[in-house]
């Protein structure tokens, strides 16, 4: 048997599971169909660490959300990713909304959310002057936070990698065969054997589950469109602003991101095509319209990009987590919101079950911490000087919008689970994520990737094979 565990999917949940499994004396591999970690739902979401008042008490969503949310701060220190506890507000616009608001508050108390309280309209407006004058009251949860979803996922995956987990990219799982003592997982790039398989395949978790289990599950891809705004308007609100929720989710939220942009979204529309991350005119319009309900005015001119992500919505309405009808096969499926918040706790829980079932003990040499890529933009001058002294490439600015240097980009490419694509560099360093959206730096980043990976620039891609940028023409 090659592996003790195969994790399918290198999104935030797969990465969290891999990282927690790497604490144990187990041989773990992660199979990912994309060319990098964090290429699916994990890269296109709200980046919110929910306080935990939304999920119904007793559900897995509630359980893992609250647990995960409590783990996030320490995890951010251990693994060096951006996280901020900025608090969240759920807005009510009329006296009729108060029942719902009180219900959320009660849920929050039952779920163990700390310091949650209801504020009057005036209190809310003092706190967040940019909010609509129509705000009647709001539920305030000071423990709500925001996180960089790429930073979190990459940190977990890198740490797993350093602790011995192998990651296999561009390997879509085609079939899983149960054998006497485990599983054979067939992918486009080869067969992998393992005693256990953990399904963290996001919107495809139903397909993976149904390859193995008789009791079928169904995951619907629910598209969410967002608009991202320039840092100039990043401080329009300081908390994450929700509205009293409806049937399809929490509605359009308005939030600062950990990097200081303003984010508005998501819409919620079910789609049959699980690759459909196209934005639509209607979607963008309803994001703006939704934002306009909460805000006095939406800073329309400052939009720098729009994007769409797919939530993995289970018919059951709750997360599907843990052991299944087939021994050795575990699910982490139906992970929609608050999945990002819950991921660390899901990872811990699954790793706990798997290690218990396999009788694995903890490793002695587990490395619990990870240092992220140096960040020239936020470093003080002393740190900057020190970095340049170590490597003068930290003095060459490549992305002028986000002040990302060649040193940071080279670090992103050459570190464990390094970037191999332009999108990979972007998620790790923010090069190309600023207001010019890579117009200026993309040719340079392509050149650095080609040099560091020792490939011709014609083979450099946006996000894997088929997304090449340029050809030779002479």
């Amino acid at each position: 048997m090659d592996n003790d565990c195969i994790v399918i999917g290198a999104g935030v949940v797969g990465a969290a599971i891999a990282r927690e499994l790497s604490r144990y004396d187990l041989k773990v591999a992660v199979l990912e169909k994309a060319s990098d970690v964090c290429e699916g739902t994990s890269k296109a979401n709200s980046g919110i660490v929910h306080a935990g008042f939304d999920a119904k008490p007793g559900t897995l969503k509630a359980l893992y959300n609250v647990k995960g949310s409590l783990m996030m701060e320490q995890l951010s220190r251990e693994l060096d990713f951006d996280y901020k506890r900025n608090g969240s507000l759920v807005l009510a616009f009329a006296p009729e909304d108060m029942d719902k608001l009180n219900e959320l508050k009660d849920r929050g108390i039952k779920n163990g959310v700390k310091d949650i309280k209801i504020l009057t309209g005036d209190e809310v407006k003092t706190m967040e002057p940019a909010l609509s004058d129509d705000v009647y009251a709001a539920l305030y949860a000071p423990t709500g936070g925001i996180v960089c979803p790429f930073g979190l996922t990459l940190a977990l995956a890198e740490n797993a990698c350093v602790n011995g987990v192998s990651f296999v990219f561009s390997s879509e799982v085609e079939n899983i065969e149960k054998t006497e003592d485990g599983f054979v997982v067939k992918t486009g790039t080869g067969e992998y054997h393992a005693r256990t398989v953990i399904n963290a395949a996001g919107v495809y978790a139903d397909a993976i589950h149904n390859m193995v289990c008789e009791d079928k599950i169904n995951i619907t891809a629910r598209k969410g469109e967002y608009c991202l705004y320039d840092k100039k308007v990043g401080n329009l609100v300081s908390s994450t602003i929700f509205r009293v929720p409806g049937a399809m989710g929490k509605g359009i939220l308005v939030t600062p991101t950990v990097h200081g942009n303003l984010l508005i979204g998501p819409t919620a529309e079910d789609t049959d095509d699980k690759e459909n991350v196209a934005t639509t005119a209607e979607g963008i319009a309803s994001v703006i319209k939704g934002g306009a309900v909460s805000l006095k005015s939406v800073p329309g001119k400052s939009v720098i990009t729009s994007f769409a992500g797919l939530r993995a919505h289970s018919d059951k309405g709750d997360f599907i987590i843990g052991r299944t009808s087939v021994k050795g096969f575990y699910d982490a499926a139906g992970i929609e919101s608050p999945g990002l918040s819950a991921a660390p706790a899901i990872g811990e829980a699954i790793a706990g079950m798997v290690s218990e079932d396999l009788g694995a003990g903890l490793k002695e040499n587990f490395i619990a911490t990870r240092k992220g890529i140096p960040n020239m933009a936020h470093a003080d001058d002393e740190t900057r000087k020190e970095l340049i002294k170590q490597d003068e490439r930290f003095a060459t600015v490549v992305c002028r919008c986000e002040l990302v240097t060649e040193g940071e980009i080279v670090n992103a490419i050459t570190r464990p689970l390094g970037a191999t694509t332009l999108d990979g560099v972007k998620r790790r360093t923010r090069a190309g994520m600023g207001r010019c959206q890579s117009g200026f730096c993309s040719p340079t980043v392509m050149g650095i990737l080609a040099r560091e990976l020792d490939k011709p620039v014609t083979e450099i891609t946006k996000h894997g094979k088929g997304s090449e940028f340029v050809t030779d023409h002479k």
Partner: protein
Amino acid sequence: MHKQIVIIGGGPAGLAAAVAAKDSGIDDIVVIERASSPGGILMQCIHNGFGLHTFKEELTGPEYAERFIRKAEERNIEILLSTFAIDITADKTVTCMSRDKGIFTIEADAIILAMGCRERPRGALNTPGYRPAGIYSAGTAQKLVNLEGKMPGSEVVILGSGDIGLIMARRMTLEGAKVKAVAEIMPYSGGLKRNIVQCLDDFSIPLLLSTTVVDIAGKDRVESVTLAKVDEKLNPIPGTEEVVKCDTLLLSCGLLPENELSQQMGVTLSPVTGGPVVDESLETSIEGVFAAGNVLHVHDLVDYVSEEASNAGAKAAEYVKGLSGKAGKGTGYKVETGNGVRYTVPTIIHPEKVSDLTTIRFRVGNVYKNPEICVYIGDRCVIRRKKMICAPGEMEQVVLKKDDIATLKDGETVKVLLENI
């Protein structure tokens, strides 16, 4: 380090400003340039048509740049290459970063902002669809083709008929690509007529006016775009959609002055131009800080960038020599826009500081036939000039005489407007 004049940017504006400041008697000048050679965006603008006003001959971008690089060299002007200005404070301390020098600061008596502009990205247009490889701003494609010898694609649709888009339509065609269409959301092109004829008509490339991209297909690489006609409010008209197969979409949808550093130091920006608010001396809201070229407002001709920047260089030199600035600088008189005029540069005039002639550059908001460009000082019309046509794509200018400006009385303004429209 201390310098009398620090110029941020070594493109056409920065070089012209440096040359003029030197010729005005200031020796202690440094130009900060982030690229490894001076010249700025001109180095990738390899087409011809530059310099007709300045040199009375038609040059390509690199040749035009070379003329100014040589002028700077002849004057021994110091240009710090591969050096990035990362911060400027209101007291005119510039923090720079380079491989040779690491992080260092320069205290300046005067600063000339000449950072140029950048392209409006796709996000600002909020075009729906996927985000595959194959979507480039026209300038990025220009850099790839002209400086790196790489082709961004073989079947191309261009959104936006600004000059860079038109130039790239021809460039891609000459390099063997098929340019299927240039779509322009407005009912008129923002590009020069000459470019429409010589870059599109010459190669039978259709220019589709009142047309935009409403969808982009292709998950990995662009596979097609959907074009649709728009109504007067620029909203797509249902039923007019047309799918055009292509592997590349170039965006040429306008330029934005690049004022991150200006904002960091607290310079007041104009919401219309996106550039600093300046007076007749091209001095910003911070004393001793000047601006010129595309960082101030987006130009269509580099000749006017050079001219404007020369003026800024000369004025900065005067400031350093103590001939202007602190003493005697009143609040000045406002330059206001009237009928048809979208903005002016400058927006403030200090009569005590003006030279014999003061150029006011402006753009109109629409296409106007047979307008009269008028300038009123108070209620006195001092300029009335008939034009056959004014269009938003072509910058206009009027030149005011010192004597006329001297007649300004308290409470009066200078007003630039179109009549007979």
